[in-house]
């Protein structure tokens, strides 16, 4: 039974990618416990945002492009990058998609249109806007997606980019994943619109741009909204701001600590900072992955056995990625001074 123009094959694909992202992120998280010392630095997981990521990417054509933030693991998985290369990158190994140069925050796969990420909040927005300008000049009908969080919408870079994109009618869709938190700050503490009880999408009005708020836990709703915006952009209608409401199920990232202190993922800030266990538990109950699974099974798109098989395959695949990463050699130390200049 097709949902909103998405046939069984597409719906299955969406579910599969969501499951793969979830399993990948689980393995990253488990690495801290199972193989301490393997992951250094700071990782940020996309668990809870799978529906938003996959629903958005489902709207793209092969020639389209995107930039994202340091919370970037989900996009290349859905785009088809081999998760072994992603895990190797997160483990700092030579076989990593960026040869160990970038790490978790900079998973880049240009061959699939994922042009890069920034570790600095908001700074990928003007870069995506530039890629959209390039697309406009080329005139091949490409569209660019710019992914960022709610925290980034307070950055001047957001304002400057949306203004220009609107003025030049650039083929871009700005996808703001609003998970209500900026590390340990709640959105109402830092955003005038949120403090007034308004959706952040209202900011679009300041740029003569349409703004939509969508349930980021429902991949079909996300697909509907983003694909309409992508069509608008592709046909020369200009940019759109899409506010996708998500809830990240893990803490902002693993703890930041000097060497010697084992890294791990603490509990979600809702609990540790705000003492709001109910909010977190409600979010767990609304977890988009089982929620979408239940919808597909209930509507007869997939049988329970098929859904289980997809989950199992994803788990096996990502366990394989871990093994591959652990076995991958480190790059030679002297390679550190390569790739400084093109």
């Amino acid at each position: 039974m097709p949902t909103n123009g998405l046939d069984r094959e597409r719906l299955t694909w969406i579910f599969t990618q969501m499951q793969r992202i979830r399993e990948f992120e689980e393995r990253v998280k488990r690495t801290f416990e199972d193989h301490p010392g393997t992951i250094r630095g700071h990782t940020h997981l996309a668990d809870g945002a799978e529906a938003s990521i996959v629903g958005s990417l489902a709207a793209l054509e092969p020639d389209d492009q995107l930039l994202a933030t340091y919370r970037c693991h989900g996009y290349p998985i859905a785009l088809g990058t081999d998760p072994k290369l992603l895990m190797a990158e997160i483990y700092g190994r030579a076989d990593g998609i960026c040869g160990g140069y970038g790490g978790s925050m900079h998973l880049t796969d240009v061959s699939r249109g994922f042009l890069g990420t920034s570790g600095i909040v908001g700074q990928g927005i003007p870069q995506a806007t530039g890629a959209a300008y390039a697309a406009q000049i080329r005139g091949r009908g490409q569209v660019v997606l710019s992914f960022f969080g709610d925290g980034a919408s307070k950055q001047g870079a957001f304002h400057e980019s949306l203004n220009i994109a609107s003025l030049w009618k650039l083929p871009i869709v700005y996808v703001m994943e609003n998970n209500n938190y900026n590390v340990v700050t709640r959105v109402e503490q830092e955003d005038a619109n949120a403090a007034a009880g308004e959706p952040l999408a209202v900011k679009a009005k300041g740029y003569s741009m349409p703004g939509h708020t969508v349930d980021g836990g429902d991949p079909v709703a996300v697909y509907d909204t983003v694909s309409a915006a992508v069509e608008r952009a592709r046909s020369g209608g200009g940019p759109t701001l899409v506010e996708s409401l998500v809830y990240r199920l893990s803490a902002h990232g693993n703890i930041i600590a000097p060497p010697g202190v084992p890294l791990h993922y603490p509990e979600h800030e809702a609990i540790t900072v705000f003492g709001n266990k109910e909010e977190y538990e409600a979010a767990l109950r609304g977890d988009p992955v089982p929620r979408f699974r239940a919808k597909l099974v209930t509507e007869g798109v997939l049988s329970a056995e098929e859904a289980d098989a997809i989950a199992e395959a994803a788990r096996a695949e990502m366990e394989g990625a871990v093994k591959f990463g652990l076995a991958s050699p480190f790059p030679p130390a002297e390679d550190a001074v390569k790739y400084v200049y093109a």
Partner: protein
Amino acid sequence: MATHELPYIAAIEEAIREEMERDDSVLYFGQNIATHENDPFLKQFGGDRVRVTPISETAEIGMAVGTAIAGFRPVVELYMAEFMLVAMDQVVNEANRFHYMSKGQVKVPLVLKAGYGFTCGWAGQHTGTIYGMFTGVPGLKVVVPATAADAKGLMTAAIRDDNPVCYFHHYLLTLEHGDVPDGEHVVPLGRANVVREGADVTIVAIGWCLGKALAAAEQLAANGVEAEVIDPRTVAPLDTDTILASVAKTGRLVVVDQSTRHGSVAAVIAAEVADAGFGSLKAPVKLVTALDATVPYSEPMEAYLLPDEAKVADAVHQVLGNAPVAA
């Protein structure tokens, strides 16, 4: 070699125009350019490749990074180096790192064109010499032309370079005429120029200070001192080999830089020579830089702060072991 005479500013424009003619992927955008239909760049290249932007440096430079990653070669008109400061992240933390962090999957060929060093009563926030803030930044190149010919040649090279390049042109040199070679003219990045040969002392002078150094050299020649004057032209990457070879010959070094002392490239040059050329030195290295203060508005104070011929000559006398010439 056949040449044509151009003011410095026109030489830069000629380079941009010729590169845009040669390569469709070169773009030119920034504030206050191409705003009327008779603008020559707009007429020649059209509104896709030439665009005016709002006052949005973060977006301008960030977009340049994005278009470069997507296969174009943008030149961003920033007017003043100080205006880059508002978007510092995009310059020293984004543009320069993408190639490295992706292990070469992307290149960021862009040119940030900005004027600097104005003085003349522009005071406070419009008069800095801040190229030192952009040197030593991995992946970022920085050029500082001092003549019309180099202004053209370095811009051509900067546009062709596959890396992000900060192109700083000195305001006081804007109308300085010079002979620019006809036809294709490329000055390789990272190569210094020995402008004047001499055996008694090496003077390395950056940007506008080159003129001061050459004037001082004439003065010194009248007193029997022959100075070798070197223009680094690119300050990142720095051509230390040429400087070291000269110091090996003369044994004495004065470096002239309009930046403040500890923010100067002069300090870096001195350190490199102290490290690799110590055996050649017959005297300590002397730096002639701006004093450590914001450039003030009022004229006598402004002059007090900045390098000039007398200060250069004085420094030379110091490294020669003579008493300083009275100011």
